[in-house]
């Protein structure tokens, strides 16, 4: 049963706790996303995120790594409130984007999700034409001008590095594209909304090395203009494309630092063990 519930209980913890100050390595960055004492429960028994305090900098790529089931996807989906769709789930604490609590009742969900785009692990283009896939977001967000939409189609596809391959068949079904092309179409579709932040949940895990390389190239291009948060199981990938890396374990944020430092000289032993493949 796919049931979509958009009401989620938000309770603030009673006992006041010290909110950790900005990490020194982020001193020169503008913080876009920040969580404060974030606890997430799928149900009272499934405590998926435990006291997460994280800061994500502007126009940088931040990677989440960690063993399967540690809560990376859950955390990512807190940023655009996709977890709202899960019946019975609730959270405590705060998720701030540009200083505003996204779980505040004044927030318009549609605006939040337009601003915080998401690319899923399994590419999910709509069964429509390529053009319709790209214009879906702008259209539901109220853009109707034909020229404007056309302009968006071209620029989004170019940004996602798909334009050359599909420019002659914009009106073909999106489902006829290859897996890698479909995933880049999903990126283009997200870009069409002109978001500030793009969340990517293992965007290349189902792709071959060449397609993966293309996606990584695309991400490298995009980080000039967008804040990107990416979940990945591929250590090399995290090392190649990210500026900062956060390591999670059993629902807790173990360590976050610059990617270089995490991969060369992590503070916590567990991180080193995981990165070097000693467990996980």
């Amino acid at each position, binding site marked *: *049963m*796919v*049931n*979509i*519930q*958009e009401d989620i209980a938000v309770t603030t913890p009673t006992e006041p706790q010290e909110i950790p100050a900005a990490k020194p390595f982020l001193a020169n960055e503008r913080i876009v996303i920040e969580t404060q004492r974030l606890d997430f429960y799928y149900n009272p028994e499934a405590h998926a995120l435990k006291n997460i305090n994280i800061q994500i900098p502007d126009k940088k790529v931040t990677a989440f790594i960690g063993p399967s089931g540690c809560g990376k996807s859950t955390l990512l989906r807190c940023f*655009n409130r*996709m977890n709202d*769709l899960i*019946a019975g789930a609730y959270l405590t604490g705060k998720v701030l984007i540009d200083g505003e609590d996204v779980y505040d009742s004044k927030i318009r969900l*549609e*605006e*939040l*999700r*337009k601003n915080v*785009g*998401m690319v*899923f692990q*399994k*590419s*999910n*283009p*709509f*069964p429509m034409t390529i053009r319709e896939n790209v214009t*879906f*977001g702008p259209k*539901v*967000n109220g853009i109707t001008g034909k020229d404007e939409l056309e302009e968006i189609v071209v620029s989004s596809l170019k940004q996602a590095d798909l334009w050359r391959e599909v420019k002659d068949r914009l009106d073909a*079904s*999106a*489902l006829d594209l290859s*897996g890698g092309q*479909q995933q880049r179409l*999903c990126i283009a*579709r*997200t870009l069409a*909304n002109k978001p500030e932040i793009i969340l990517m949940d293992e965007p290349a895990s*189902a792709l071959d090395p060449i397609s993966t390389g293309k996606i990584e190239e695309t991400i490298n291009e995009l980080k000039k203009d967008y804040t990107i948060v990416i979940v990945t199981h591929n250590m090399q990938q995290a090392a190649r494309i990210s500026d900062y890396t956060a390591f999670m374990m059993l629902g807790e944020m173990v360590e976050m630092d610059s990617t270089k430092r995490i991969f060369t000289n992590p503070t916590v032993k567990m991180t080193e063990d995981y990165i070097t493949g000693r467990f996980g």
Partner: protein
Amino acid sequence: MSRRISYFKQKGDPYIFASGLGLVVALGMVTWIIAVILSRGLSFFWPGDLVQITTSGDETYLGELWAQEDAIQLDADGHKIPVKQTQLKIGNRDLYGMDFTWIRDKNITEQAYPENAVTFERLEYGNFYGFIEAVHSGDEQYGADHPELYTKARQAYRLAREKREQLRETQEAMTELSEPLTRLQREISLLEISPEGRTDEGLQQLEEMRRSAEQLEQEIADAYQALTEKYEKLYLEERGIYLTVRTAAGEEKELHLSEVVRFFRPNQMGVFAKSWHYAGKLWEFVADDPRESNTEGGVFPAIFGTVVMVLLMSIAVVPFGVMAAIYLNEYARQGPVTRLIRMSVNNLAGVPSIVFGVFGLGFFIYFVGGSIDQLFFSNKLPEPTFGTGGILWASLTLALLTLPVVVVATEEGLLAVPRANKEGALALGSTRWQMIRKVVLPNAMPGILTGLILAISRGAGEVAPLMITGVVKLAPTLALDTTFPFLHLDRKFMHLGFHIYDVGFQSPNVEAAKPMVYSTALLLIVIVVLLNIIAIYIRNNLRKKFKTSTF
């Protein structure tokens, strides 16, 4: 040994065999029923040869071979002895009182197929089988010795048809001419019985209306008189065209050609002529009005009624069913309440259809229809407009009956929409309604169409609820015609399913109507299949378009 048996059981061969057998039995029954309907329904229109049988009792019969069977006869001592007997359709109901007779085969002394035996299909009293003795056409007269007697009869027949057509036109002209007067007279009589008609004002108005009616009557009197005279003259001419026909037994009779639908000499017809005749009869069946209390002629009004009713039902049931399913699936909080609702909807499918009919009668006809009459058609009361059975109420009743089917199928379609697509739409900032409209509904369309197909199949064959919500044996007018407002939702209608019941079990001449039952059943099946094929075609096209994304 026991190991072999246990292995046999493990493999499950007996169960596979039993399930295969079940399938074979089910398929066999379906094939059999369809074969029976096909052969009986389609052979009805084939012109049968006319056989003349003389019995040992010196009786002569002429007719179509209908059936042969082994019967049991008791002899004087009470012993049962098997006898063969033949059923002959002898027609001539006006002379013999019945259409069929049984003849013991052992009593048959002579059997022949006379070349010039003629089958007459008549507007009344069924077929006449016999021989043409003379043709009377106005002043002309041709006896049995005329070499071209049959051709003359055909000419006379054409003339009679023409006269009949002219008579009909004259009659129409007369009705049209007197229309305003009839309407005025109706208004007068309505006013006379209403309370206002007894007030001074009303009396004065009545007086005025009566005066203008008189005036109108005088105005049209001359034209009306002329038409009446023309009518009478035509009538006399028409009555002057007739055949003298003789039955096999030698009885003579006058047969007015204007009462004959068609006549032919089956024993002289080759396969090609018979096929042509067959095609004509088939066309008559689907395109003409019924005759002889529905046992002859066509079923066009019933086809029309069935199709219009099914369409109206679909228009009503699909939006409601789909909206209900969407609410249940996408908006309602899943829990005991939705489960209860789902269970109720499913159980609604098990309620006997006659109960829906009773509900339709009570709610739609008496309550809704009665209120509509009070509000909008009060000038016609006490004559009901919508407060009586009609095609709209019947369609809505069937829509209610088929609602569960549509809801369940739509829910299945909604569930089949990939979650990833729904999340993708929401993640792009669409509202839930936008997601439903742009992603869920198109994707669920095949499921919705499956629901529609099931609803059509169920609704088209349903008879019981219609019998109390507006179906009639013979509807004088169609629900759709060229007079404003074109679609007359208040009208009674005919329906193929009810037609089968009526012709097969309610008609005065059940034996003669039997083939008609098969033909009508066949037609109903064909229509349901056609409607389904259209829906399936659309569904397959959609399926192709929405094949789910794969890597």
